[in-house]
């Protein structure tokens, strides 16, 4: 892999940028790998990268039925934060946040991680009590956070509507200054390029049609490019995890739902932080291009169609316009839906299964992007050692029968 640098940029400018090395190879699949990762999104690619880099396992293939980072990695609102309520979740997401900080250097790829701070608004007394509880829990776990009142929120976001006679008045917020946003595509591409440089085969347009087992153990996968053997198969397929599990007769505690987001036309810099509101199901930030990036809620029903209901978007936009009246005249450019794998306790499943050699990393639901490096990091450990990483252990699928759920639903300041 040729390193990117200021000097290489200058050197290639002399040849009109026509001689850059391809960021990754497009190899033919081998007959057999040590590990097959199904799903070439951010989490799958990060898993491959850390498997190769940290654990030295490089005979790895990432199979992607479409193109790299074309699913939920391309469809989210790029928010990164770690202010989760429960110890297990906050430690996992904070591990991820730590990796984000050096990720551009580590990957030699600018993921444009920008720690511009994240506000989670409170609109009633109960919201504010929950926020205080969560911020206190965060601080005990070493995660920065403060509780702000209306005036302090207004100071950070001067364009917010602070009048107290609106339907959902801003009574205050939690503020995580180390949160922010990152460039979603660059994260997938950076991990892909990094994994490829260690010899990982990234195979696109390769759809897994069946998982082949013998005597209760995985021996490989049947794909549209033929059979590929592996003793370990790791499914990192987000919304399609249920479909993957059904191939070996397993069921998951997951329902797949469309989650929508939309972007406006590009406007001049107007909001330099991330504003989220759990209660009104709306969140907004501004991309470096200038578009407002707006996240909506999930549809209530199961769906795989990568599009959502219009009434959900309408609901979100009415909330955004009330919070930011000046946005009422901004035109929206594009809206889209991603299929998120929602878990009953709004926490992921990073786990072995009853089938030997079959692993799942799924259930990230509406908030997986922020966890991309951490998820890949702990899942790679789980795959390499055949035993859960200490941070991943509480997220075993067993928790649904032991009852040790990690109930982040509504507690994490998330628009679930």
């Amino acid at each position, binding site marked *: 892999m040729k390193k990117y640098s200021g000097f290489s940029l200058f050197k290639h400018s002399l040849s009109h940028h026509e001689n850059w090395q391809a960021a990754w190879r497009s190899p033919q699949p081998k007959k057999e790998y040590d590990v097959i990762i199904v799903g070439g999104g951010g989490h799958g690619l990060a898993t491959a990268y850390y498997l190769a880099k940290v654990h030295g396992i490089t005979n790895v293939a990432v199979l992607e039925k479409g193109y790299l980072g074309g699913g939920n990695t391309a469809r989210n609102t790029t928010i990164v934060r770690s202010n989760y309520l429960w110890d297990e979740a906050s430690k996992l997401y904070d591990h991820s946040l730590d990796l984000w900080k050096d990720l551009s250097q580590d990957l030699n790829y600018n993921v444009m991680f920008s720690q511009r701070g994240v506000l989670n608004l409170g609109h009633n007394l109960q919201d504010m009590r929950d926020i205080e509880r969560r911020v206190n829990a965060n601080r005990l776990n070493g995660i920065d956070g403060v509780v702000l009142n209306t005036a302090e929120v207004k100071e950070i976001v001067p364009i917010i509507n602070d009048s107290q006679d609106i339907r959902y008045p801003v009574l205050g917020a939690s503020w995580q200054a180390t949160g922010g946003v990152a460039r979603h595509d660059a994260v997938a591409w950076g991990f892909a390029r990094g994994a490829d440089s260690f010899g990982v085969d990234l195979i696109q347009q390769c759809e897994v049609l069946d998982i082949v087992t013998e005597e209760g153990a995985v021996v490989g996968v049947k794909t549209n490019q033929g059979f590929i053997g592996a003793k370990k198969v790791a499914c990192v397929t987000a919304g399609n995890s*249920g479909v993957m599990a*059904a191939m070996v007769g397993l*069921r998951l505690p997951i329902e*797949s739902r469309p989650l929508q987001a939309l972007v406006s036309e590009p406007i001049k810099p107007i909001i330099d932080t991330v504003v989220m509101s759990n209660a009104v199901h709306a969140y907004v930030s501004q991309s470096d291009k200038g578009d407002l990036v707006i996240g909506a809620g999930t549809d209530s*029903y*199961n769906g795989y169609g990568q599009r959502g209901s219009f*009434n959900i978007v309408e609901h979100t936009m009415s909330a955004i316009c009330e919070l930011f009246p000046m946005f009422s005249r901004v035109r929206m450019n594009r809206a889209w839906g991603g299929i998120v794998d929602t878990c*009953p306790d709004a926490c992921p499943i990073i786990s072995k299964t009853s089938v030997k050699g079959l692993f799942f990393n799924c259930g990230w639901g509406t908030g997986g992007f922020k966890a991309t490096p951490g998820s890949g990091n702990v899942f790679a450990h789980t795959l390499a050692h055949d035993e859960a990483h200490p941070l991943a252990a509480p997220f075993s699928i067993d928790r*649904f029968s032991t009852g040790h759920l990690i109930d982040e639903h509504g507690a994490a300041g998330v628009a679930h």
Partner: protein
Amino acid sequence: MHHIYCPYCEEMREEEEYSYTGEAHIERPKDPAAISDEAWADYIFFRSNPRGIHHEMWYHAAGCRRYFNATRDTQSYKVHETYKMGEMPTITAATVAANQVAKGDAS
């Protein structure tokens, strides 16, 4: 936005009148104390979550306030049928697959 036929009101109504309440035809174990934790977890949390034909419950919250069942395609979002509680679906993944085979034979 779905238009869904309420089998009790006998009218097409907009999606916003309804609440989705999850997979249908899940029977509560007769004697919860007698079954294993795994079986109880399967009843409470685990779902079939198919891509394709799905039988699900809807609640007509802003209408007759009754629960009914629907057969819907989770890929195309087409609502194939709605039917009253206690009734069984006439369209299932098996019948749809059989229809596709029949059509394939004809062409």
